[in-house]
Structure formats: C-alpha cells, structure tokens
C-alpha cells in the first residue's frame, strides 16, 4: 500500500519565517527561484541548496517534510537531469538535479511556515481590485489552493492505479494511463460536487 505524498503541510511555529508577511515570503520565493534559473553554475547551485537548507533550519521545518518534498520532485528531476546529461554532459545534469531539489525545498519551507488560509487571504486581497471587472477573488484564491492541494491526491491515484495494474500483471503504459486519467477526472468531478455542496464559490 503506498503512502500518500504530503505537500503543503503547515507546521505551526513562531520563527522569523512564520512571522513574515505572506507577500514578502512569496516575493522572496519568486526572487529565489528566478536566481536559481538565471545563475547557471555548479558552485551557485550548491550555494542555493545551502540557502534553502538554511531557511529550513531557520523555519524549523522538520526533516521528514523536507525529504518528502525532495522525493516529490525526484522522479521529474532525474528524468530532466538524464536529458541534460545527454544534451550537455554530466556537470549540467548534476546542476539541474540540484536546482530542482532546491526549488522543491524552498517551496516546502514556504508551505510549512505559512497557513493555507493566510495564502488564500493574501491572494483574495491582491486580486480584490479586479472585482470591478467581474473577477471573483475568492474563486481565484481557491483555484490556486486547489491546484496545489490536488498534487498529493493525484500522485496517490497514480500510485494506486500502477499498483492495481501490477496486481493484474499488466505492464503496458496504457494499462496505467487510461484508468489513471479516468480516475483523475472522476475525482475532479467529486471534488467539484463536494465544493458546490459546501457552498464554496457561491458568493
């Protein structure tokens, strides 16, 4: 039985990172991510990784949370790194791998030190002026949040579908993909119904 992948889990605390306003943290994450993408060198990648780990220490983010975040991107990171190895060589591949893991760790630090509803409230405030042109800020904020929260559930569905296919001795990618897509769509419908039933997005 596969364990669900846990992302976006807030860990209550009173560290500097917990006390920082959401906007500052999001802007910081955006700036940090840009720097990782723009500054291309192995020493820089290691410095960024050290900074992400330093922030995790500062925010007292637990080790299991960091490991889960790293594991969450590891498959994608390895595939991308493999491609980089083929295109640009070993050093490029390692740098890409380190960069992607660093990005995942930085995102984990943000979600571990920021309650989801604080992020929702911030997005509602930022999108608020667009109300005049017919945009519903609550709905926009909820869409962001659901997109993030859907990740663990979707990964769980993928693992369950793979296990079910293996249990029946099916190895073809189609045996995994077709039921996976159907289940994701069905779950999206169920979640939509559940949100509608709770009146979320009605106002």
């Amino acid at each position, binding site marked *: 039985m596969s364990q669900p992948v*846990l992302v976006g889990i807030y860990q209550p605390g009173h560290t500097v990172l917990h006390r920082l306003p959401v906007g500052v943290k999001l802007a910081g994450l955006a700036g940090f991510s840009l720097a990782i993408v723009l500054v291309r060198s192995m020493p820089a990648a290691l410095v960024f990784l050290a900074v992400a780990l330093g922030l995790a220490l500062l925010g007292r983010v637990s080790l299991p949370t960091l490991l889960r975040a790293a594991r969450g991107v590891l498959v994608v990171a390895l595939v991308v790194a493999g491609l980089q190895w083929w295109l640009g060589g070993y050093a490029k591949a390692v740098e890409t791998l380190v960069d992607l893991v660093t990005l995942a760790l930085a995102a984990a630090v943000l979600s571990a030190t920021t309650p989801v*509803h604080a992020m929702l409230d911030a997005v509602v405030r930022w999108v608020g002026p667009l109300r005049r042109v017919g945009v519903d800020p609550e709905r926009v904020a909820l869409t962001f949040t659901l997109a993030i929260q859907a990740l663990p559930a979707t990964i769980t569905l993928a693992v369950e579908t793979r296990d079910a296919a293996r249990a029946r001795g099916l190895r073809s990618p189609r045996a995994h993909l077709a039921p996976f897509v159907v289940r994701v769509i069905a779950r999206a419908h169920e979640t939509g119904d559940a949100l509608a039933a709770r009146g979320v997005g009605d106002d």
Partner: protein
Amino acid sequence: MIEYDAAGLTVPTPAGDRLVLEATSLRLTERRIAVVGANGSGKSTLARMVNGLVAPSVGRVLVDGVDAARHGARVRRHVGFCFTDPAAQLVMPTCVEDVELSLRRVERNPARRRQRALAVLERHGLADHADVSVHALSGGQKQLLALAGVLATEPSVLVADEPTTLLDLANTRRVGELLLGLEQQLLLVTHDLELAARCDRVIVVEEARIRYDGAPDAAVADYVASVAA
C-alpha cells in the same frame, strides 16, 4: 420543509433517453428521513436534488419554499451535504484548515474563523487532530471531519449520501449516532437498514420510482421482501 413537486430526471444517452427518477411528489416534514434501495435505483439523485447538485428535468424541489435548482446558492446556505467518500470532500491540508474553508463565507476575520473551526473540531472529538494532515486520518475520522466541515455553518437540513458505506462497524455506529442525534432535519441515503429503521420515515426507491413510503419498520420489511423476491 423539503418538497418534491413532480420532480423527475431523464438524461439523454446515445441509446435514447434514460429515466433516472420518475416524476416524484413528496412532502418531507419529519426530522429524520431515510432513503433505501438498490445501487442505481435513483436514491442519490433524489438526495442531490435537495441542494441543487442535480437539477430535475421535470418539476421542482423546494426547500422552505425556495427552488433548489433555480436558487442553488441560496438553498446551499441552509442545506449541508455529506458524501460517501470523505476523501473527495477534504481539500485542505490539515483538519482545522478544512473546517475553516467551510467558514470562509460566514466569517471573514481569520482569527475568529480559526477559533470557530477549533470549536467545531472540539464538538466532534477532533480537537487533538486540528493540525494533523487530513491524509493521516482513519476512514472514520475522515468522515467525521467531513461532517464537521458541513455542520460548521449550521445548516438547517443535512443530506447524507451513504455516509457509512465505506466505514467499519465501530465508525458506522459512531457516525450513525452523530447523524441521528442532530437537531437538523436529516435526509439519509443508506444501505444500513438498522440505521434506517431508527429514522422517523423511510422511503424505498426501486428502479427510478418510489416503491414504498411510510413507517420505518414496514418500509424496511417491504424493502427486504422486495430483495428476497
């Protein structure tokens, strides 16, 4: 009060129109009403019409005089809905955050919203799980949390669509006791005949129509006899 005014549903399919629920007229005034019947008989459709999740193709469903299909948002402020699978209902990372999601439209102040959410969890015996991941809960705890999220806004009617189907015996009893003890009017779709028999009225649905509607003991006996036949 819930009123079905010749409400029915037919859906188009490539093979022609399919009757999901024939035009049904009911006045539900009792506090606890159970709906029983085979899978695919139309029970869930009957329930989902109450808060506008399913719109009837003929007739209408009124909740306290308000048309649920035309004024869904208004009706949903007073009608809570609990689904079979809590996993689809729990969308926030932690228990307290999920209850807070329900409270967002009634309480704008974050601090007060958090307090209210914590009080709701306390009421449902989940206070110790406030900051626990919703994925880490047992099936029974997930269903209790889903119910807590629905009841947080204090609806006057609760519709529950097979809320105990995925639960073990202990949790079935726990959730059942919670539902039957509610002050709200309860419309309970269930396969649990023991639970149905404890309601004030039982409706038996068979092949898209109401087969029996009446006192619990007689209705349950009729349903059991129909299955045995």
